[in-house]
């Protein structure tokens, strides 16, 4: 079944006490890293997967940050972006044509009607959840912004690997989400303990993916149509 907006409530656990603890933890000794490797059940590395770690003990701090999702060559670049709740995202148009970006996802409904260059105001994503971006002019353009509660997240590259850095010692719920993921991400979640001395090593995930539903662009690249 294709992605449903209602689904990904991942890395969204909140704990007030935890928040205080984290503050405390920040001043403790050096933080650890988690190396994550995600592979498909067939062994193929999975790219564009968001990995986030939610501390089970303690909370997260909100880091107000910025993110950029550009439109380049009539695609969303990057395809999958993860931001912490409250991040303002810029959408610079690096193409020579105008785009009309929209999202009807419950987590953020917005649209940036036909524009070129960079809109003055970035869009603030203040609700956790999955936001699916589309372009009204170019039907094939699709991008994802996963808004998470935790500041520790990363997106896997082509080799299916990602690194979570600066994690204070503690136990974390590490979850994975990918646009083609079959089933809820909680199903494949793993508990990882981070100690002060060193990283726990590579955490491997084996996931099942659905076929890619995205309409492909025309073969020549200039032909901007469906397959």
């Amino acid at each position, binding site marked *: *079944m*294709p*992605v*449903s*907006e209602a689904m990904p409530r991942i890395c969204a656990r909140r704990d007030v006490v935890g928040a205080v603890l984290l503050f405390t933890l920040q001043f403790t000794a050096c933080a650890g890293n988690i190396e994550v490797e995600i592979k498909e059940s067939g062994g193929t590395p999975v790219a564009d997967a968001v990995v986030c770690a939610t501390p089970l003990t303690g909370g997260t701090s909100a880091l107000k940050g910025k993110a950029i999702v550009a439109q380049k060559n009539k695609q969303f670049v990057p395809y999958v972006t993860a931001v912490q709740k409250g991040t303002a995202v810029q959408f610079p148009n690096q193409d020579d044509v105008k785009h009309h970006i*929209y999202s*009807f996802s419950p987590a953020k*409904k917005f649209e940036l009607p036909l524009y070129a260059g960079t809109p003055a105001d970035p869009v603030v994503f203040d609700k956790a959840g999955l936001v*699916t*971006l*589309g*372009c*009204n002019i170019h*039907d094939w*353009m*699709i991008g994802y912004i996963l808004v998470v509660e935790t500041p520790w997240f990363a997106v896997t590259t082509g080799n299916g690997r990602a690194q979570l850095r600066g994690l204070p010692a503690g136990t974390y719920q590490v979850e994975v989400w990918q*646009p083609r993921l079959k089933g809820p991400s909680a199903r494949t979640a793993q508990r990882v303990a981070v100690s002060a001395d060193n990283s726990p090593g590579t955490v491997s995930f084996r996931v099942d993916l659905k*076929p890619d*539903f995205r*309409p492909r662009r025309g073969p020549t690249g200039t032909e901007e149509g469906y397959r």
Partner: protein
Amino acid sequence: MPDSILRFRTFRGRLAFVFLSLVALVLAASFFIALQANRRYALRQIETNLRTGARIFSALTEHRLDQVTNEARLLASDYGFKQAFGTSGEDRATIRLAMQNRRDRVKADFILLVSLEGQTLYDSDQPRRDGLPFDLPGLITAAEENDALQARGLALRQGKLFAVVVVPLLAPAPVAWIGLGFRIDDAFAAELGALSKQSVSFLQRNDSTQWIILASTFDVGKRNELQRAIGALTGASGRILQLALGGERFVTLIEPLDVRNGAAAVALQRSLKEELAPFRALEAALLFVGCGGLVLSAIAVAGIARSISRPVLRLAESVHRVEGGDYTTGDSPDFGRADELGQLTRSFQNMTAGLAERDKVRDLLGKVASPAIAAELTRGQLTFGGEERKVTILFSDLRDFTTLSEQLMPPQLLEILNAYFTRMSRVVDAHGGVIDKYIGDAIMALFGAPLNTPDQARRALESALEMRMALNELNRELLAGTGRVLRFGIGIHTATVVAGNIGSPQRYNYTVIGDGVNVASRLQALTRKPEYDAEIIVSDATLSETFGVFRSRQLGDVAVKGKQQLVGIHALLGRREREEGAR
């Protein structure tokens, strides 16, 4: 002549019967073979056409579905609609109106909106289903598994047949399913029927396994007939059947339709009568040609039979006449024919002429003469009533024949005698003489009668000499065969005698009477006398006429009974050699 008429009719009739029967048989066979071939070809054509019609149906439906799919995709990418769906998802009224609007835009029969979970959000055809699970979940599953996330199919809803397509509403990821449908109704059937020139009916099989008609190009009457004819037919899919609808035979192909929620089929039909119409014309033409051919053959046969039987009959008549003694052949129209019948006619006429001649000669002489004499006789005007003329008479007689006859068996005796006669008569004939009669073993020959022969004496003497030679030859054979020889004596005399047909009308013979005959006979008897030592004795009268052509020995004079004067006789020895002009 009833007999000949019967025969006439039988031959002609038989010929006509055999020939015409053969022709009729061949024509009938050709006709029926052509008929059969036509039928088979026509049915094959119909089958091909029906299957083509089925393919047209598939193609047409697919084409419509392609169109509708494109329309649905267009609708699904309508930003306004996406926005309406995305931003006011719970506002059913807005959604409903938006959908109705879009359905009307593309003039579809209905439009559907189904959630990703399979719940009917809006169904323009059955509005009361809103909120209930979608009634064609198989379609949604098929779309999910499809590369392009779309599906199409046929469905039965409330007794009507629909074609439905389903496409995703992408915003930009799939957020719902949009469906468009059109009815498979009479109009669709009519379109299909017009394209493929056949009758189209859509059938549904309901629970009681009866077929009912959903849509058709037929009028109500024929629909009922079709309903009756199909009834509870099973296992008919894909086969060609023949159904009778109201007296008209239709060749029918029933193809099952792939319907998601029921059993349906399309029946494609062509009227057999219409299909066979061009072939009927051909058959009529064949029949006409056949009958015409038969009639012409009959005429030809009659002509041929005639051309054979008529001459044959004419010949038969001629033969009959000949049988009766009538040798008049008349002018036969067949005489000049170049073929076998002409040959027959000519041969027959020659034969008849020959017979006529022979008969004539027989009539004239009461005996058979050599062909030369016969020819002469028929040419000349001769008297057979009796006349005096100079004739040379030759008598020959076998010695000791009586003794011979006692020693031999009758068949053997006859054989020898006939061999002797055959040779002797051949010689006489060759010299222009005529065998008058055979008296026992004696031969009487005439030279100079009935035809005038100027050198009759010479001929007679030549004849005698050759007869001697012939006898020697015969004796050589006889000696070898039987160990016996024949000896004869010949007497020749020339005198004026009375010649003519002597006897009664029933039995007469051309012969001569008078003293001269006796003399010749007497001379022959004298050859027995050993003192003469002569095989052939001729009289003065005869010899003097030969002017020294022959060698002879004087024998003296003898007295012959009844004659006062003595007759001088000579023994004939042979021809005088080395004489110029001696013959």
